[in-house]
């Protein structure tokens, strides 16, 4: 006992302090270890040379700076419910790229937006950047901006969906267009087989004549016009169809087709854009490092039309990516909002994994922003493929089912207390799997702009963070700037409505005049041939 007395006398206080420290270590240890590994990762990221994106701060206040190259040279996925902060997070990347413009020519981005929110904010970012630049660089940047705004009626971009992709075979192009139109054409019912057949031949006919889809009504209803086109068409099968079979098609089939097209052209902006003669060459735009902003939404654009436009644009972009040279000098990032709409049809579900798998070789990368991907992609294999090819993800408040891929990467503290109903029973700590399940379930109730950033190639664990808010003007100040630019034809290489309509009228006149001459020549030749045969 004397020994113990001696120990207590001389080392008692030190041991008490050591015990307190040790117990504190045991409590905080796992938490600290988790933080330490995150901090190591963040320090490694911060040490990377080159521009970086300030993605937010960790719960303990450490800055999360991710090298821009890590983000843009990869397929990224941002998921979250309405108002969770997806658009704001996407803007953080765009803002960093915009800051590098117009000096950096090896990196560019495109925005495909069916809501208009990301599009408008991207427009504002560009306006803000333009204001910062001296005149010469302003012009350089302006020259790089291309806007396709289906909602605008004042500044228009021609988007002829029947303008064939360069280097693509006619059959492939028409089949692709037909399937997109068949699956996504807004209507309560799907297009019948017969209707699809009629549509197919009309698409070939118009595509050969270089006419937009807005002429479909005339093909269906005006015999003269149709005859003129048929005579000009080099495709024998199409000529044979219109000569022998078209007349036998039921009136109902034609009316159903006409009705569906009318719903597509209900919005004036969409009708004007689709009635143009040319279509954007996304291959060229990507190779030249243009900033392409595409807006598919507007007050008069219905949901069905929006989905169709998004589908058409996606199929054009897909085609253009594979037409790019491998390892091109310009890295192109497509920021696609409401990306769940890219998996609506079977064709899209087959195409998207291809695009995500192989686009890397062609220097194009997709960043998908969506609310709920697992609901949109019913095929688990495609979802799996998507998650495999994705190199980073930002998971904000949303459905835990959608964040199932993240479960194994959720950071653990090892210190979450298990609730104990019995007052005299010792409270336990949740095990790793239980804690992970809890963290996974809590994704459904994360606060706004809080989530998990997982850089798969950098760490097996995700980083919990709170994304910063970009200082954008709100209300009238924001609208004033954005609306002025949206209606300004000089912004985004567009044409004013007046000029656009005039151009279309000229083209129609020219075309009709030319076809009339052609028809006269054909009739004269035919008459001469018959006359000679008669003689």
């Amino acid at each position, binding site marked *: *006992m*004397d*020994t*113990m007395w001696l120990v207590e006398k001389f080392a008692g206080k*030190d*041991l008490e302090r050591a*015990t307190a420290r040790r117990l504190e270590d*045991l409590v905080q240890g796992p938490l600290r270890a988790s933080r330490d590994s995150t901090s190591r990762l963040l320090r490694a990221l911060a040490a990377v040379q080159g521009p970086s994106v300030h993605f937010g701060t960790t719960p303990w206040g450490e800055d999360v700076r991710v090298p821009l190259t890590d983000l843009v040279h990869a397929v990224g996925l941002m998921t979250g419910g309405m108002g969770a902060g997806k658009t704001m997070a996407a803007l953080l990347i765009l803002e960093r790229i915009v800051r590098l413009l117009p000096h950096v020519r090896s990196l560019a981005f495109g925005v495909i937006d069916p809501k208009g929110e990301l599009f408008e904010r991207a427009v504002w970012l560009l306006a803000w950047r333009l204001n910062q630049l001296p005149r010469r660089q302003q012009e350089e940047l302006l020259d790089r901006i291309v806007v396709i705004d289906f909602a605008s009626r004042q500044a228009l971009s021609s988007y002829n969906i029947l303008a064939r992709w360069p280097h693509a075979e006619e059959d492939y192009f028409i089949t692709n267009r037909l399937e997109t139109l068949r699956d996504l054409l807004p209507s309560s019912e799907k297009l019948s087989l017969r209707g699809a057949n009629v549509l197919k031949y009309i698409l070939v006919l118009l595509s050969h004549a270089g006419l937009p889809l807005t002429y479909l009504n005339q093909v269906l209803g005006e015999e003269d016009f149709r005859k003129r086109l048929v005579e000009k068409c080099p495709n024998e099968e199409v000529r044979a169809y219109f000569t022998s079979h078209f007349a036998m098609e039921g009136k109902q089939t034609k009316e159903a087709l006409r009705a569906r097209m009318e719903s597509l052209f209900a919005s004036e902006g969409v009708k004007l854009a689709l009635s143009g003669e040319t279509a954007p060459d996304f291959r060229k735009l990507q190779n030249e490092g243009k900033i392409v902003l595409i807006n598919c939404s507007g007050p008069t654009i219905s949901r069905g039309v929006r989905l169709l436009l998004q589908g058409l644009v996606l199929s054009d972009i897909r085609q253009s990516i594979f037409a790019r040279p491998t390892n091109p000098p310009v890295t192109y990032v497509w920021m696609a909002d409401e990306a769940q709409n890219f998996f609506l049809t079977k064709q899209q579900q087959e195409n998207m994994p291809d695009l995500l798998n192989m686009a890397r070789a062609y220097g194009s990368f997709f960043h998908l922003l969506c609310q709920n991907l697992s609901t949109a992609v019913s095929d688990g294999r495609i979802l799996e493929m998507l998650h495999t090819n994705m190199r980073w993800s930002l998971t904000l408040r949303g459905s835990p089912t959608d964040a199932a891929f993240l479960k194994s990467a959720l950071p653990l503290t090892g210190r979450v207390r298990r609730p104990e109903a019995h007052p005299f029973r010792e409270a336990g700590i949740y095990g790793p799997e239980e804690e992970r399940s809890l963290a996974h379930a809590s994704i459904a109730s994360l606060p706004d702009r809080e989530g998990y950033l997982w850089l798969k190639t950098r760490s097996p664990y995700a980083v919990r963070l709170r994304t910063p808010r970009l200082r954008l003007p709100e209300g009238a100040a924001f609208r004033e700037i954005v609306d002025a630019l949206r209606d300004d034809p000089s912004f985004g290489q567009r044409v004013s409505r007046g000029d656009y309509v005039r151009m279309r009228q000229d083209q129609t006149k020219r075309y009709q005049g030319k076809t009339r001459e052609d028809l006269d020549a054909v009739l004269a030749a035919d008459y001469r041939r018959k006359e000679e045969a008669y003689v």
Partner: protein
Amino acid sequence: MNEFIREILLTLAASPFLILRKITGLRHHIHFLRIASTAAIACTCGRPIFLVGIWKCSCNYTYRGHLLRHCPICGRIPRMVRCHGCGLTTKLPEAPHGDAHRER
């Protein structure tokens, strides 16, 4: 007288052994003191084995502080400690004065 001389002689003859025993006891004592007042010892694997914390005696008495303490209920002192890194156990010094020892 003879008896007294014999006692002295016996003591003198035994004294080296007695001194040696005392020295050994003192060494054990010091070793015990050293371990009982240190917060951690090193395992053969190189990891530290912490001797401070919250402990539970085999009689279920739970105490806070250093491991090498008499349990106020059963009076036992732990005799070994396990390394949580490699799983090996290290023998602890025995308490002086023949205190009751019991492996934990």
